[in-house]
């Protein structure tokens, strides 16, 4: 309590000081201020006395009051001489406060400041590391140019100090000295170079910071320390992590190749580019090809990730779990800029987590998310709901969330987003409502399907009471109408009526422009509007006046009979307007449209000038192309280059020599850091037990494991494939036969197990192999680079897969892929019983996928999947075969007719096989027939044109199709759960044909196995909007169970839910005589459940019910199944 009183006391005194201080600088000469000045003077005199007394406590009290002065921004510089004497005080707190003072005022009192230097020099030799460190801190913070040499010396000495804490301080001092005297740069770089080699986690962050400040372009200094920095990263304090990660992002951009290079080429549509995920076979061939024309297609080389690049990605990933938002953001931007497309997804979850944090953090994160969503929409789609807006969010956050939601909108989720927008429009926050209306406009332009819905919604808003809302809607409607004006003359009419009420100038101007532009659609109303406007012309805002002139001109040109006088009246009014723009415009228009004797050559073209077809405006996100700034940076946030921003370099064409990163002493990174760790945690028995082996490098994560398994798996495959593909397929068939013999259960277990052992043993052997390999790399000879490449190309396939392993759903799917072979056989057997030869024939026809491509893929998968399979519960694996249902006759579609194809005909069908290189793709089987008399060569695809989000995996080039022969190939298309067609060119060596593949909605899904209970539970969650019911009368031929099942499964790739139980145990809601058939599937891209129920009633009546989260898919599916069942 006493302190409080004391402070208050002081407060009163200070108030006086304050008043005095404020007047002194400006009006010290004026007499009035003199009195105050003197009190102030006296006050400080008082402090001086206290400082000069012998009592420590008095001195301390004085210093505390001085610090308070400083904190208020008051000037206390005249006390400098009295204070500087105390710099050598024994009392630590006093000393600290003196330091605070010194750092603040030394710059102003340079001569006096020099008095203190000798004290610091002495302290720099102190045995206590903290005294050394703080002496250096203060010494380097005194911005007096004269002591630069002393500072330089001190820094150099401290950089070699035994204590890492002092070394850290010296790293900080480097920046200070650099900003004080940039001429010292060269010497400072030497110190930085030395400190970069430091192995202490304490130093790493600070020295990289110094590096960024002093010499960010000296990338060569990083090479030798790169691996060490990567490995230390997890243990560095959080602020250092941010700095290091940002620096390493730039470093990686200069040193490694773009991991997405193949995809970007594909996107550009450079034809013939192949990707060889699955088949090692082809890769070998390709390898040969490459040697032949190595230089020419250097660009097309399959991408090989540098192991150092992988190291960086692996070691930063755990940091996504950091509690520090800045660290998470730093890792996120690193992944966004450096990781292969397939791996970027991991950051989404972490970023969404940050949205729970303080609103400032949200603000920054949302800005970055908005930029990311433009490039990688799919990444954030699962988190759509996290961006829903709460009424309590600050407006700036709302607007950003809206931006993200708009970017995420696509055909499948637009209905939910629009419904959400509808509630936003009712918000009290009008700025936010305006932003919502614009967002609706953008959704409408981007997604054609909902354009009319949006337009109708916006037109309804025109009757809103809030003028701002109406005005904003008018502006957006104007933009939308421009896309297809002919359909919407009634809306234009409606808007014409609004001119009486709307006062917001921008909206009025927009309406007038619309009427003028489309006056031929509203021939009656337009002149009347002009009449009204002419009447109120003088009272309008400038932009409205300009549009009135425009309207008049356009009407004069199209309907001069009715509007001639009006136009002249308007032009006359405009002639005498106050605004010169309007006068100019009027003069210009008059000359153009009103024919006079001397009318210029231009008036002939007046119509063309005014009534030219205007291109519809493109509503773009303000975040488009912002990603050329490094994400997470200040420059990105401001969308302008901030001072000191280091450009993110473009990827190099060819990777620089990776050997620069090799370090002389082979294993020092691993050993040293491992030792350090052990030292650190020596007390913990379990730690060293479980993971002492591999040390911090292995702070990696599960990914490294899976990567290595896939590695070894693919390695084994390539070995096998060398030995010959036939033997392999034989092996396969053998296992198949075995399987048939045994019970299914055993099969399930056994099949996966075998490869596990294999891969395990191989993995360990590989690991052993790897160590010497690493060493040998240091000796690296060029001839070796080939083998390195090999290894890399294998690992290249791993990312795409390891990514897939993340979601269990995908795993199960893969599992199916792995098993698809065996079951298909058993399925065939079943079918034989059920459907006689017919279906067998069909299947044989399709037995399709030219085995050289598919078989190796399957083995590869089964190997790498083995581990995953083990984790799955037994019951699952028993049941899974049932998910593959007897697919009836697959329908063939024509891609290229024999005649248009000049002898080449192509048919395609959806093979319903999982497309192994990418689980999100639908496999399309193409069957080429050469009906002509000459051979066709080099069949491949080119110029793929897709809707956004869709992807295509091309079929491998068919080199030769002899006359009269047939061949088939498989390609994959990710339709993004839409029925948009994939357009591309089919090219032979002579011709190009434009073709397109449009999937029936039923092919956009894959079957899943559900039990009846699961089915009902899921169905319960997909009620309301997601449920579509339809009554129908079954076709006469289609009244038995078998027929219904067959027709439904033909129409859509669904699996039947076993529903025998329905008859037995459950209380018969539908009477047992009229069975209910249930089918389940998931959409391929987004894995949304699709549930179909066909409930039969008497006399062939039936009810069809489809539950699907994706309403568009649901509706289309209902139509298709309806058709299938009624015909």
């Amino acid at each position, binding site marked *: 309590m006493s*302190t409080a009183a004391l402070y208050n006391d002081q407060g009163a005194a200070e108030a006086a000081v304050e008043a005095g201080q404020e007047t002194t600088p400006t009006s010290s000469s004026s007499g009035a201020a003199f009195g105050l000045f003197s009190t102030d003077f006296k006050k400080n005199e008082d402090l001086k006395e206290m400082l000069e007394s012998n009592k420590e*406590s008095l001195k301390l009290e004085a210093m*505390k009051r001085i610090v308070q002065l400083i*904190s208020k921004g008051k000037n206390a510089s005249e006390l400098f001489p009295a204070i500087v004497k105390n710099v050598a005080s024994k009392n630590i707190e006093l000393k*600290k406060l003196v330091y605070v003072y010194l750092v603040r005022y030394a710059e102003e009192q340079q001569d006096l400041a020099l008095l203190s230097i000798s004290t610091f020099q002495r302290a720099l030799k102190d045995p206590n590391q903290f005294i050394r460190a703080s002496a250096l801190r203060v010494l*380097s913070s005194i911005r007096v140019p004269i002591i630069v040499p002393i500072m330089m010396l001190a820094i150099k000495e401290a950089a070699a100090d035994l204590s890492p804490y002092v070394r850290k301080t010296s790293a900080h001092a480097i920046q200070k000295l650099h900003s004080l005297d940039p001429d010292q740069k060269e010497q400072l770089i030497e110190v930085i170079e030395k400190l970069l080699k430091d192995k202490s986690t304490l130093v790493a962050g600070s020295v990289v910071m110094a590096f960024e400040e002093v010499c960010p372009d000296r990338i060569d200094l990083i090479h030798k320390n790169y691996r060490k920095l990567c490995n230390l990263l997890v243990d560095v304090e959080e602020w250092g992590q941010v700095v290091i990660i940002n620096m390493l992002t730039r470093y990686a951009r200069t040193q490694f190749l773009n991991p997405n290079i193949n995809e970007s080429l594909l996107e550009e549509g450079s034809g013939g580019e192949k990707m060889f995920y699955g088949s090692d076979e082809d890769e070998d061939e390709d390898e040969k090809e490459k040697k032949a024309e190595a230089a020419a297609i250097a660009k097309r080389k399959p991408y090989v990730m540098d192991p150092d690049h992988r190291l960086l990605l692996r070691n930063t990933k755990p940091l996504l779990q950091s509690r520090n938002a800045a660290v998470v953001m730093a890792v996120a931007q690193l992944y966004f800029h450096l990781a292969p497309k397939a791996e970027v997804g991991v950051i989404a979850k972490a970023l*969404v987590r940050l949205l729970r944090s303080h609103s400032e953090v949200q603000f920054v994160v949302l800005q970055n998310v908005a930029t990311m969503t433009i490039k990688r929409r799919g990444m954030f789609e699962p988190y759509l709901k996290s961006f829903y807006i709460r009424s309590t969010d600050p407006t700036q956050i709302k607007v950003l969330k809206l931006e993200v939601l708009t970017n995420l909108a696509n055909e499948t989720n637009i209905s939910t987003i629009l419904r959400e927008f509808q509630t936003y429009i009712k918000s009290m926050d009008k700025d936010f409502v305006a932003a919502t209306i614009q967002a609706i406009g953008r959704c409408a332009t981007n997604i054609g399907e909902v354009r009319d819905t949006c337009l109708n919604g916006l037109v309804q808003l025109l009757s809103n009471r809030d003028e701002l809302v109406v005005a904003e809607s008018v502006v957006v409607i104007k933009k939308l109408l421009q896309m297809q004006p002919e359909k919407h003359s009634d809306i234009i009419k409606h808007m014409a009526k609004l001119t009486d009420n709307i006062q917001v100038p921008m909206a009025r101007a927009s309406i007038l422009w619309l009427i003028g532009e489309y006056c031929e659609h509203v021939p009656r109303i337009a002149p009347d509007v002009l009449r009204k406007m002419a009447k109120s012309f003088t009272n309008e805002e400038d932009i409205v006046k300009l549009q009135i002139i425009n309207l008049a001109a356009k009407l004069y040109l199209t309907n001069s009979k009715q509007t001639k006088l009006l136009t002249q009246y308007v032009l006359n009014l405009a002639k005498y307007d106050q605004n010169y723009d309007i006068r100019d415009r009027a003069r210009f228009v008059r000359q153009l449209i009103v024919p006079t004797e001397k009318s210029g050559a231009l008036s002939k073209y007046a119509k063309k000038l005014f009534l030219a077809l205007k291109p519809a405006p493109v509503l773009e996100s303000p975040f488009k192309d912002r990603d050329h700034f490094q994400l997470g940076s200040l420059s990105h946030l401001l969308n302008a280059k901030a001072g000191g921003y280091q450009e993110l370099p473009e990827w190099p064409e060819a990777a620089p020599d990776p050997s620069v990163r090799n370090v002389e002493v082979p294993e020092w990174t691993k050993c040293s850091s491992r030792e350090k760790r052990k030292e650190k945690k020596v007390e913990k028995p379990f730690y060293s037990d*479980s993971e002492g082996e591999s040390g911090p490098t*292995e702070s990696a994560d599960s990914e490294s494991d899976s990567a290595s398994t896939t590695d070894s798996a693919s390695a084994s495959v390539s070995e096998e494939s060398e030995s010959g593909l036939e033997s392999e397929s034989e092996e396969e068939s053998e296992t198949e036969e075995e399987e048939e013999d045994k019970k299914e259960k055993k099969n399930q277990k056994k099949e996966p197990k075998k490869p596990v052992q294999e891969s395990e043993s191989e993995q360990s052997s590989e690991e052993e192999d790897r160590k010497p390999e690493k060493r040998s790399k240091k000796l690296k000879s060029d001839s070796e680079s080939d083998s390195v490449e090999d290894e890399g190309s294998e690992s290249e396939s791993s990312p795409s897969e390891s990514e897939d392993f993340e979601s269990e759903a995908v795993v199960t799917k893969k599992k199916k892929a792995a098993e698809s072979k065996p079951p298909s056989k058993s399925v065939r057997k079943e079918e034989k019983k059920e459907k006689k030869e017919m279906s067998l024939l069909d299947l044989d026809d399709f037995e399709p996928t030219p085995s050289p491509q598919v078989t190796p893929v399957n083995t590869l998968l089964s190997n790498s999947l083995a581990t995953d399979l083990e984790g799955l519960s037994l019951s699952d694996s028993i049941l899974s075969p049932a998910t593959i249902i007897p697919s009836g006759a697959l329908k063939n579609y024509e891609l290229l007719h024999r005649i248009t194809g000049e002898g080449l005909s192509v048919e395609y069908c959806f093979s319903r096989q999982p497309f192994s290189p990418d689980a999100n793709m639908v496999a399309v089987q193409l069957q080429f027939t050469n009906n002509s008399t000459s051979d066709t060569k080099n069949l491949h695809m080119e110029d793929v044109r897709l809707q956004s989000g869709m992807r295509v995996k091309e079929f491998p080039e068919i080199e030769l199709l002899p006359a009269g022969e047939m061949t088939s190939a498989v390609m994959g298309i990710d339709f993004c759960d839409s029925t948009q067609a994939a357009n591309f060119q089919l090219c032979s060596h002579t011709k190009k044909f434009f073709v397109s593949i449009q999937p029936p909605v039923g092919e956009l899904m894959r079957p899943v196995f559900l039990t009846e209970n699961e089915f009902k539970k899921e169905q319960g969650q997909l009620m309301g909007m997601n449920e579509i019911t339809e009554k129908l009368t079954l076709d006469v031929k289609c009244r038995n169970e078998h027929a219904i099942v067959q027709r439904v499964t033909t129409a859509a790739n669904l699996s039947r839910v076993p529903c025998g139980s329905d008859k037995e145990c459950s209380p018969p809601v539908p009477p047992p005589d009229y069975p209910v058939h249930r089918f389940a599937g998931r959409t391929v891209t987004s894995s949304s459940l699709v549930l179909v129920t066909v409930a039969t009633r008497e006399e062939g009546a039936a009810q069809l019910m489809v539950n699907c989260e994706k309403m568009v898919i649901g509706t289309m599916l209902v139509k298709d199944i309806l058709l299938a069942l009624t015909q």
Partner: protein
Amino acid sequence: MIHSLFLINASGDIFLEKHWKSVVSRSVCDYFFEAQERATEPENVPPVIPTPHHYLISVLRHRIYFVAVIQSEVPPLFVIEFLHRVVDTFQDYFGVCTEAAIKDNVVVVYELLEEMLDNGFPLATESNILKELIKPPTILRTMVNTITGSTNVGEQLPTGQLSVVPWRRTGVKYTNNEAYFDVVEEIDAIIDKSGSTITAEIQGVIDACVKLTGMPDLTLSFMNPRLLDDVSFHPCVRFKRWEAERILSFIPPDGNFRLLSYHVSSQNLVAIPVYVKHNITFREGSSQGRFDLTLGPKQTMGKAVEAVLVSSQLPRGVLNANLNPSQGTYTFDPVTKLLTWDVGKINPQKLPNLKGTMNLQAGASKPDENPTINIQFKIQQMAISGLKVNRLDMYGEKYKPFKGIKYMTKAGKFQVRT
């Protein structure tokens, strides 16, 4: 990095400034004031404001703006996160972070800021290390200090920076060795007009208060760790161990800290513990509106819903409200139009209800927006996600600690649209 820091209070006075590099005139804050004027609400001030020579990055906490002055490129989150850490430290030291508290302890604040940043780059931000460097003020100590003239600065030089575990000081001693863990879960939800859930998710944290002697090594395991979808850890948690075994293994910092925050995987359906029946209508033409709100427990697993507080921002046209609560008290602020109803505990037998009329401005048309209802509540002794701690073990020390675990569920951002 960070050049200077200005603290600005709600009325726009700069009441503290600190410079780490050369002095930046406080007139730079004028740009901030400009932006503040443009923003209608205090929280709408943009966190990053560019000025001709500097950039201002600010956070708003406890109605104080912490404005950092930056001269060149730096990740904005870096600064924002740091500023929040400063506020957290102040709160830790002074109990509250208000203008008065900061002014009273200005010397400690200065000492702290001096330690936290060196040349604008964070130096020591761990509260354990800071507390060793600068003792937090307590009533007793301030008394003693004023009498004896001694100080807040630690007498011994700290060893913390170099201890094997950077977040824990050495030589900790307690007579009662105890470790408490609070599992606190928050439900964020948006409920639509008809009562169906638009989005709902559970975010949880485990806050710990560990007072153990020596260098204990703890492991904490869960019955159902698979519930945790996305986690972020205190740096003390060994990430590898979590990845491999789903066990939290760590050497705890001394005192209070947040061990873990997590997000419950979105596959699990979220149980919504309360429901709201509402009928808020405005009739066209008349200047009155009806307000009727009933709360009830929904999926609470038998636990009582406590500390319920309902708030709603009524439309601007509402002049006054005459309501009648069946329990608790309500207030309506005619200026901000904020209605709050402090319900207290929900009694399932007699559901709390708030009913009455709202008076609208005479002649004004019926507002077309509907108010949203925000609800706060607490449920003790339950983690709504079903997360359960299995066991807590200690290694490395010989004594038997006292262990305690508490569960609680709270409403996070829980909104009902009407």
